[in-house]
């Protein structure tokens, strides 16, 4: 029961992004739902802007990869998840954590390397986890999280529950060999894993057309008999619709599913990326015409689902959450020196504790 979209040939351009599957013209979605997507996406955007600012002030160190522009991907997919589902991603992970309900204070405090961070300040931007939210990281090795995600799905299948694992990776990671080793075993063993390729078109500074032989990465799943589709990742409703299909497939025991979500990151690869591999016009055009938050904002206003004042009050609420998280993260103490020596060996399995 494969469901392949016809793949258009050609290079990855904005046209390709537009050509991907769109949500229905008149989405059947409630005002509350729309508002919650607006709110969740805005939280990620404002949080990331604040993280960028704290980085600029020297409060966040090392690498810091911002998710701005890609918000619809995680918010759309989290809308399809149920209690018990897991998620795992690579290093551009702040959005995933906020979308699955992790506390912005704990995330921001991890970014500043403080005691109240999710990993007590020992993981940093790229390595954060939440046992409670079944968020399995936060991985700094590109592609390594893909077999890990399939392994979490393996555990669910072994236990006989109907949980699924959202395994996120980028168009860059999609060229790692272990991704295809994993596709093979996931298909062979019908693992309930949704491979989410967040295609933001650039693997660090290398565009898809310069790095990837296939125009449609999800079609690589065909070689393994894994169904999938391309999705407009700037449209949260399109992401949600595709996610529901993928989740239904996996939950019913039919094995893995691939979603190639065409998205775009507005900021550089990391904070120290001058982004000379693309034009300012390209970025600006995407922001002006395709912005995921702006699209929902328009839907809310034109559909009379919300007034400008309603949205302003959401903006205000988000601004407060984000500012509070920054204050929290600045004021949380650095971890005690004794923490250097803890969490190297477990005396009991922590995820069972």
């Amino acid at each position: 029961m494969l469901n392949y979209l016809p793949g258009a040939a050609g290079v990855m351009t904005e046209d390709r992004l537009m050509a991907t599957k769109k949500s229905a013209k008149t989405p059947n979605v409630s005002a509350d739902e729309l508002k919650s997507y607006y709110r969740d996406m805005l939280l990620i955007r404002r949080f990331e802007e604040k993280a960028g600012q704290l980085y600029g002030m020297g409060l966040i160190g090392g690498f810091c990869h911002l998710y701005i522009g890609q918000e619809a991907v995680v918010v759309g997919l989290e809308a399809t998840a149920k209690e018990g589902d897991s998620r795992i991603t690579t290093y551009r992970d702040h959005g995933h954590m906020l979308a699955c309900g992790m506390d912005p204070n704990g995330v921001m405090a991890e970014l500043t390397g403080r005691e109240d961070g999710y990993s007590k300040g020992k993981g940093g931007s790229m390595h954060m986890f939440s046992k409670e939210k079944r968020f399995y990281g936060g991985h700094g090795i590109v592609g390594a999280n893909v077999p890990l995600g399939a392994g979490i799905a393996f555990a669910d299948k072994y236990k006989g529950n109907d949980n699924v694992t959202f395994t996120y990776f980028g168009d860059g990671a999609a060229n790692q060999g272990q991704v295809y080793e994993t596709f093979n075993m996931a298909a062979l063993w019908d693992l309930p894993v949704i491979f989410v390729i967040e295609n933001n078109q650039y693997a660090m500074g290398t565009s898809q057309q310069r790095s990837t032989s296939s125009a449609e990465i999800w079609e690589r799943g065909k070689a393994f008999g894994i169904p999938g589709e391309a999705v407009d990742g700037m449209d949260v409703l399109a992401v949600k619709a595709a996610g529901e299909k993928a989740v239904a497939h996996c939950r019913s025991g039919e094995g893995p599913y691939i979603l190639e979500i065409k998205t775009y990151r507005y900021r550089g690869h990391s904070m120290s990326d001058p982004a000379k591999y693309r034009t300012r016009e390209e970025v600006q055009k995407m922001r002006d015409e395709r912005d995921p938050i702006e699209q929902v904002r328009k839907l809310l206003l034109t559909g009379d689902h919300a007034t400008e004042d309603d949205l302003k009050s959401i903006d205000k609420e988000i601004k407060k959450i984000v500012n509070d998280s920054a204050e929290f993260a600045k004021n949380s103490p650095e971890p005690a020196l004794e923490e250097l020596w803890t969490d190297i060996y477990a005396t009991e399995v922590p995820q069972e504790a």
Partner: protein
Amino acid sequence: MATEILMPALSPTMEEGTLAKWLVKEGDTVASGDIMAEIETDKATMEFEAVDEGTIGKILVAEGTEGVKVNTPIALLLEEGESADDIDTAASASAPAPADKAQSSETAPAAAKAHPTPAADVTPDWPEGTKMKQQTVREALRDGMAEEMRRDDSVFLMGEEVAEYQGAYKISQGMLDEFGPKRVIDTPITEHGFAGIGVGAAFGGLRPIVEFMTWNFAMQAIDQILNSAAKTLYMSGGQMGAPMVFRGPNGAAARVGAQHSQDYAAWYMQVPGLKVVMPYSASDAKGLMKTAIRDPNPVVFLENEILYGRTFDVPDMDDFTVPFGKARIWREGTDVTIVSFGIGMTYALEAAEKLAEDGISAEVLDLRTIRPMDTAAIIRSVQKTNRCVTVEEGWPQGSVGNYISSVIMQEAFDYLDAPVINCTGKDVPMPYAANLEKHALVTTAEVIEAVKQVTYR
């Protein structure tokens, strides 16, 4: 009050930069995400975006200014309802102190955390009078795994040829029949991938045993063993870890050449977060396997193909386990301590036997686990014999023996009557020719020679 816009750090190492260009002017309104300026660092020119919305009240640093320190106020942003008149007071407010580097406490943590030297545990591994049975290492490993799989449903075995083929080296013989294909799983030839799936399954609450047909092939998977399995507990602040066993034959077999003959004990020994086991006897193979499967941490279990067929006494008792970090004294002696592990024990014991004929009394210690290492037992023995020789098949530079030597130097220097000698494999890739291969490995003659050197005989 107006918000100060500060000169940002745009890379992990930037301390100052050039304010190359302003893209906004005083009086402009900006929203989050608008590009306000271009800033040149030593690496590149970067765009600088607004985080808050407001009106540019005053530009404090003119474009073209070089050497602007990070966190210097470069402009003032007025919020709704503020006017430029408010600026003077705001501007006089001093810039917030940059992230205080000194806050990272100066108190250096204890450098290389000294090995605590607790009293060595010399209790016997099984009660006196326990009935013994003869078993090969191969059978002992299988029994260890099978007993744990009966005890805990979350334990499963995966690897190449472990199920229908009954194991490439027949370690998993009969296990598919007993536990079925759900728990004894043949994988494709895809070490990197199935090691990662194993680690993920451990994250997800199972207790995987991942068999590598040999540890040489685990090189394809070493990223998952180190970066995913060993480090996650730390990186997650203790929230999750990888309770699992990676196992398979390690080191040289016979005539299989350079790519199939490497000893990885010294490699994995280095990694905090891993435990590393390298048994010699069948009883240790069984007892340590059961401990490894129960351990809540990732365990690297290094077996040896040549030892698989060797027969030893194994205690015939329910639930026999051997603790990690406890060396075994195979032979007591007074003149020299020979420390070894795994197949190295073959040379150590053979040498001790021959040395006894020459009137040299060697104490032979089997480390059994390389990490945690029972350095207390080594020190205790060296304090008695005042001399030490280490024996392993791995390469000399950065060997397990090198580490043992450094521990002895730091903790028992005054007890030493001679330098410690490390007997190792030769510093060459493993050759195929029979005569060369024999010479490439450590030999009993070399161990004897080393002992004579340290005992000045």
